[in-house]
């Protein structure tokens, strides 16, 4: 509920309480009013019922009284005599007299045949006495309510029975206001007789009256009813007064409830808000004081709980912080802690020294003697280091068997001395679980900030130095400035080489090889070139080595094969009948699928397959002779020419060479560059050519820089020549021109002065 969120705790509490009180009070009030109303009605009805009983009783008693009177009248001897005299006026006057005595409005005396014997008053013409008399004969008397001329009348018939006199006296008595007043007074209602109205209802309720209708005759044109009414004005006024009182009471209660709710909300709300602020402060990581809460009960418990939470939170934070910054095995600060300390050191600008120690073969210790034992070794090492180090220096375990130490600045010699001291301490025999145990370790040192400007450099250069140390197998190795830059350059080359392979920023140059006998342009050596967008020209030696390291060499080789095949296809199409030689890396030979790659790349090769030469370095053949030999055999099956590159620099045994399926030797250019001036080189080259010829191999000489070398080699029977003297490497597009140039020089090259061997 958005509203609930807006009005807050206090508002909600007040709203709820007031609403509750309002609902309860209004319900009670409403019920009370309803009951009052119902009660009033019930009482009115009860009173009207009572009124009806009273009316019945009054009417009955009146009838009874009149009967008694009439009974006396009809037994009056004078009256009887007057009637029996047979003299009508006498009879009439006697009847009138008696009627006055009993208060009758009219009276008539009938004989047995309903002939009037006497009359008094003005009896109505339509008395319809037959039924009345029949009833009177049946029960000795009869009484009936009737209406004559809009007036209610009670007719009473009583027999006049004197010896010898048989007659009926019928007297009419008014039912008027006098009587209804009596009924009203007795019953506490307003009573009146009503004629001429028919109504089936016994009870009517209007806004002003409760009415009860007592039927005195049957419904008909001249019906007579007694209306009993209770005026509602008084009770309604009473009711409205009550209503006003109840509304006042409810309003008062509501105001009170609101005030109480406000007070409660204040007393409850403020502490709650304070506690909320307290909890928020705790959440923000501050350590606030608990708010003063006077109230007891749940709020106090909550405050207590929050306080406890704060304490436990801090404890746990401490634990986490400790765990985050310490090594759990040795209890020393861990890498993160050391690095943050290093950062502080850098930001303070103070120079310091960094010593790194790696335990050699810790993994072997763990593997052979168990992790438990390894951990004990680590703890022992850390204890020894801590003993050896001055107080001011930091010590941390930053990896498996790696410890780093930071000491105040000292000279290079002092640093080395300290490093050696530490190394000796660590390497001195160690008792672990009563087992004497010796360790070997590697130490490196850095001077900060001279050797590294920030933590990233520190990490990189430490690792580099450790690598160097493992290679050099020195006890203590200092970081050599520049190492890291080379390393970074290598990393960049490695990472960018992949992109270069895909976006074709590698390209090929081709250096011609000439048949030395006739100086004809026979073949080119494909040389890969890379102009790096940032580093500029990167030598193939460098990036091919790195590609071998990073496992990209296969990709590179495949790429080169395809490039060369494409270029060659183009120059063959242009009519140049030139073969191609391609350098393979040592790692290429370990790949069984290399022959497939070659076959695939040169699937559209138009010249004989022997015009494709694959050049393999000696060392490559020597690394894994078995696999290399297998690969070479399969390549040979393709029909390509195989050549041993850089011959004379490796450690190839001639017996190996004898087994290899190669057809060509390529004498390393280091022997050829100064051939004209170096007699030793001449000896080596010459004897190599002889040996190769003896083994049935052709010889290629590369690095021919001048005409003298060219001539010497030509005279010694070297089959192919390559070098700047002949041609620099050129782009594929320039081969046509180069071929032209070389054919122009053909005569010069073949008519050189013959030198005697």
């Amino acid at each position, binding site marked *: 509920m958005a509203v609930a969120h807006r009005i807050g705790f206090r508002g909600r509490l007040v709203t709820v309480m007031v609403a509750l009180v309002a609902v309860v009070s209004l319900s009670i009030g409403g019920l009370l009013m309803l009951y009052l109303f119902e009660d009033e009605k019930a009482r009115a009805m009860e009173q009207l019922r009572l009124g009806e009983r009273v009316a019945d009783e009054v009417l009955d008693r009146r009838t009874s009284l009149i009967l*008694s009177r009439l009974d006396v009248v009809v*037994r009056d001897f004078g009256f*009887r005599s007057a009637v029996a005299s047979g003299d009508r006026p006498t009879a009439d006057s006697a009847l009138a007299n008696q009627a006055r005595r009993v208060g009758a409005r009219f009276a008539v005396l009938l004989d047995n045949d309903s002939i009037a014997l006497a009359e008094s008053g003005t009896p109505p013409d339509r008395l319809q006495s037959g039924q009345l008399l029949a009833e009177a004969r049946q029960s*000795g*008397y009869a009484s009936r309510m009737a209406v004559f001329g809009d007036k209610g009348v009670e007719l009473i018939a009583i027999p006049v029975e004197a010896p*010898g*006199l*048989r007659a009926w006296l019928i007297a009419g008595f008014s039912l008027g206001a006098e009587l209804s007043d009596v009924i009203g007074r007795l019953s506490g209602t307003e009573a009146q007789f009503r004629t001429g109205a028919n109504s089936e209802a016994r009870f009517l309720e209007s806004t002003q009256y409760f009415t009860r209708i007592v039927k005195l005759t049957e419904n008909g044109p001249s019906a007579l009813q007694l209306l009993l009414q209770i005026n509602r004005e008084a009770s309604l006024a009473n009711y409205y007064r009550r209503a006003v009182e109840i509304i006042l009471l409810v309003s008062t209660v509501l105001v009170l409830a609101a005030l109480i709710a406000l007070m409660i909300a204040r007393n409850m709300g403020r502490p709650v808000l304070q506690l909320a602020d307290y909890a928020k402060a705790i959440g923000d990581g501050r350590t606030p004081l608990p708010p003063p809460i006077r109230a007891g009960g749940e709020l106090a418990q909550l405050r207590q709980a929050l306080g406890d939470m704060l304490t436990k939170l801090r404890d746990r934070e401490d634990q986490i912080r400790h765990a985050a910054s310490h090594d759990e095995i040795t209890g020393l600060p861990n890498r993160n802690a050391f690095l943050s300390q290093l950062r502080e050191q850098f930001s303070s600008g103070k120079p310091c020294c960094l010593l790194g120690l790696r335990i050699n073969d810790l993994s072997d210790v763990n593997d052979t003697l168990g992790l438990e034992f390894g951990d004990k070794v680590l703890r022992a090492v850390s204890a020894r280091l801590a003993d050896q180090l001055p107080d001011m220096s930091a010590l941390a375990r930053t990896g498996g068997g790696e410890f780093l130490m930071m000491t105040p600045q000292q000279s290079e010699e002092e640093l080395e001395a300290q490093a050696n001291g530490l190394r000796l301490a660590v390497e001195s025999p160690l008792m672990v679980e009563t087992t004497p145990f010796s360790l070997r370790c590697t130490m490196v040192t850095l001077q900060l900030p001279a050797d590294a400007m920030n933590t990233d450099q520190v990490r990189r250069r430490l690792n580099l130095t450790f690598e160097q140390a493992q290679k050099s197998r020195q006890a203590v190795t200092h970081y050599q400035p520049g190492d890291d830059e080379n390393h970074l350059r290598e990393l960049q080359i490695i990472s960018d080489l992949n992109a270069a392979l895909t976006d074709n920023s590698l390209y090929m140059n081709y250096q011609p090889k000439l048949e030395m006998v006739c100086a004809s342009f026979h073949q080119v050596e494909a040389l890969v070139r890379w102009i790096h967008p940032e580093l500029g020209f990167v030598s193939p030696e460098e990036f091919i080595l790195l590609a071998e390291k990073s496992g990209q060499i296969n990709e590179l080789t495949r790429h080169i094969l395809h490039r060369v095949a494409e270029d060659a296809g183009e120059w063959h199409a242009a009519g140049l009948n030139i073969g191609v030689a391609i350098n393979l890396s040592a790692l290429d030979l370990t790949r069984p699928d290399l022959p497939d790659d070659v076959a695939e790349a040169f699937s559209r090769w138009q010249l004989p397959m022997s015009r494709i030469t694959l050049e393999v370095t000696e060392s490559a053949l020597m690394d894994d002779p078995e696999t290399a030999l297998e690969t070479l055999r399969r390549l040979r099956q393709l029909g390509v020419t195989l050549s041993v590159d850089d011959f004379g620099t490796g450690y190839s045994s001639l017996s190996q060479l004898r087994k290899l399926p190669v057809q060509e030797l390529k004498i390393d250019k280091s022997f050829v560059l100064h051939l004209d001036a170096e007699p030793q080189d001449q000896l080596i080259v010459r004897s190599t050519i002889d040996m190769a010829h003896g083994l049935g191999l052709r010889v290629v000489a590369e690095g021919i820089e001048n005409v003298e070398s060219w001539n010497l080699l030509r005279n010694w029977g070297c089959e192919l020549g390559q070098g700047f003297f002949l041609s620099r490497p050129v782009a594929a597009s320039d081969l046509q021109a180069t071929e032209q140039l070389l054919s122009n020089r053909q005569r010069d090259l073949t008519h050189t002065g013959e030198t005697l061997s």
Partner: protein
Amino acid sequence: MYRPIITLLIALTGPLCHGAEPTGLTLELTDSTTGQPVVDAVIILDSGSENQPAEAEIIQKNREFQPHSLVIARHSKVDFPNRDNTQHHVYSFSPAKVFDLELYAGRPEKPITFDQTGVVEIGCNIHDNMQGFILVTDVNPAGYTDDQGRLDLRLPASANGNAESGLRIWHPRMTDNTRMARFTVNQPYPEFLELSVELSPEPAGDDRLDGLQKRFREL
């Protein structure tokens, strides 16, 4: 209540009816409201013998007229001696004889002479429940009905071609006991003549008004 009717029968001196033999039949009288036989009803045949005036008395004793009913011939004299220790005011408003014996004790000055036929109802102005009847008739009653409401009658055969004969019946509890009920019997006469009159129920013996008022209080 059974009140014997005392009749004074005067020996018939006149000759019997000449002509045809009279026919015998049995009258059976029932109360038309209850179907019960009417006992002690006076039956007077038109053809009955003439009776002679006589002197009779109705005494008041224990606030009762004794006899309760009296059948007499016209011109008979009736005396009303008072044998009670209270005075009585005996009177009648019956058209056959209106008389008024003001309060007296012992014997009135003179007897009352009844010179018109009819039913004379007598009462006491002081004691409302005292009631008596005097039947003044020219003919001797044929008799009174027995316990079964029966009376054997002898009706005269018609001599002058008259095919019917009349008879009158009276009982003190007839609803209109101020007159005799008149019937005619057509010839040929049946063996059984079944007639009925309407009787009012026997009074409870209490004062009538007490009954009324009691009934009111029960409302």
